[in-house]
């Protein structure tokens, strides 16, 4: 079970807000993590703890295809991202790198950030403040990729959809 404190963001959080263009050519994600959400919230990284959960509105991760966006969130220790909806490439990238990602509408309107949230991925359930929220299970193919630990592991183990 995933468990952590939630950080709340609005709609249309784009990839430039997650990690700005000028940091993409830094040699590694570790160097980028100090700049995560730089334009959104000052000193975000200082307050975010490993294991915390990000919750957002519609269209999270819209914009560029940069895999550094989910990678840097994984690097700071985000254990789960919940949103009302995700941009397509961000969703794929997250699955490919093994960052759990969940679409759930209802919970967004009922949390303010700061609460403790738990999630059972396979069961499709989120728990917060004595309430249970249900989300749709991911398609079989995507679950297989996640179970392999991402796309590279899937290729290494010979699994590819045919």
């Amino acid at each position, binding site marked *: 079970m995933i468990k952590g404190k939630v950080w709340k963001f609005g709609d249309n959080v784009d990839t430039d807000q997650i990690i*700005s263009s000028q940091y993409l050519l830094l040699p590694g994600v570790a160097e980028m993590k100090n700049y995560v959400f730089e334009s959104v919230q000052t000193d975000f990284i200082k307050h975010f703890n490993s294991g915390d959960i990000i919750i957002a509105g519609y269209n999270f991760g819209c914009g560029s*295809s940069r895999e550094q966006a989910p990678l840097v969130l994984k690097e700071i220790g985000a254990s789960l991202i919940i949103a009302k909806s995700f*941009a397509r490439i961000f969703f*794929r990238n997250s699955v490919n790198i093994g960052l759990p990602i969940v679409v759930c509408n209802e919970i967004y309107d009922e949390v303010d950030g700061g609460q403790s949230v738990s999630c059972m991925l396979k069961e499709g359930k989120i728990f917060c403040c004595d309430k249970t929220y249900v989300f749709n299970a991911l398609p079989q193919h995507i679950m297989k990729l996640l179970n392999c630990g991402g796309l590279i592991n899937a290729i290494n183990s010979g699994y590819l959809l045919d």
Partner: protein
Amino acid sequence: MLGLNFVDMTITEKILARAAKKNWTKPGEIITVAVDWCMTNDATTHVSIDIFNDKLNTKKIYDPDRTIFVIDHNVPSESIKTTQVQNKMRKFAKDYNIKLHDGEGICHQILLEKYVLPGQIVVAADSHTCSMGAIGAFGTGVGSTDFVGVMVTGKTWLKVPETIKFELEGQFAQGVYARDLILKIIGDIKTDGATYMAMEFGGPAIRKFTVDDRIVLCNLAVEAGAKNGIVEPDEVIEQYFKRIGRCYDKNMFFKSDTNCKYEKKHNYNLSILEPAIVSPHQVDNYDVVVKIEKDNIFIDQGFIGSCNNGRIEELRIASKILKNKKVKPKIKLIISPASRTVFLQALEEGLVEIFLNSGAIVLNPNCSVCWGACQAVLGEGEVMISTGTRNFKGRAGSPDSYIYLGSSATVAASCVAGKIVDPRNLIK
């Protein structure tokens, strides 16, 4: 031959079904497709190379002749770190015999000029790969891991998208362009209005759109969240390939069937459109320029270029406005043609001379200001009007800068006026 018996399908469904060796497919189905071209650029290739070297068991590229590396984001390099990252890419390309285009132009423009053909599938590590739809190909953006997957297996999985059809009719009024239309469409359907879907541009007016115009439309499809943008290839595309001397296969010119299923249809009458302006910091913050003119938005910088709007036609439009006029002294107008081919053409037509005489700064072909990491980076509080792809917060430099989006005409006219203005005032 596969594909001859496709019925009641959209062009996107047909291209995907063919690449999956299927006679039929429908939206929502997850299929594995053979990919014709995969491409990655210097913004993220180092991430892919690390994955390939450190995590992947196989060390074999599926087909180096169909793998393309482009150095276009930070050109020429502005720092030691960037040079190191780009050299890593150059070495990898050499080691594995991968085609490398180094400083020749923006990746999507290179793909369209040199490689991609109608009906093909392009998967590339850049969100604006949806540009490929302009010639009737399927192009979609992916991240670094997906790119590696395609590079070593030659295929990828895709969910067949639903299609939104945009029926275009009528003709643009003077001073209104394809750029104004696509900004209006995104303003209408919003930045997630086409998430996971295909945006198909059709209707009687599209047949008069040039290839450049079609690229403008398809390129920005991702700004509405779309998987791909597409236009049925026609005589305009045939003429285009004849002109640039590339062979094509007419059997790969797919079209949507009369009875295919569209998720939604939107109608646009081009004759009533006006020059567009998109305010910070979202691509759907649309309005018509004439409405915000009175707000006196003074600018520090203008930018004409990018994979959306750096081709010869947009440069011609800008040159008509800038001819015998001067950019306001305090304003930097940056112009960067989308590729070396475009640059040479602009030189030949005398456009570069007009730009330089107007006081503009003409830069080498690259992503330039649209990417905000190596050229004309915006400072705190600065305002730019741009033909770039995005106006996200901090996209072109300081998190406290402001980007407005408009056509090359609107950018040129605003740089002459010193503030954001309707270009029709200068075209009359």
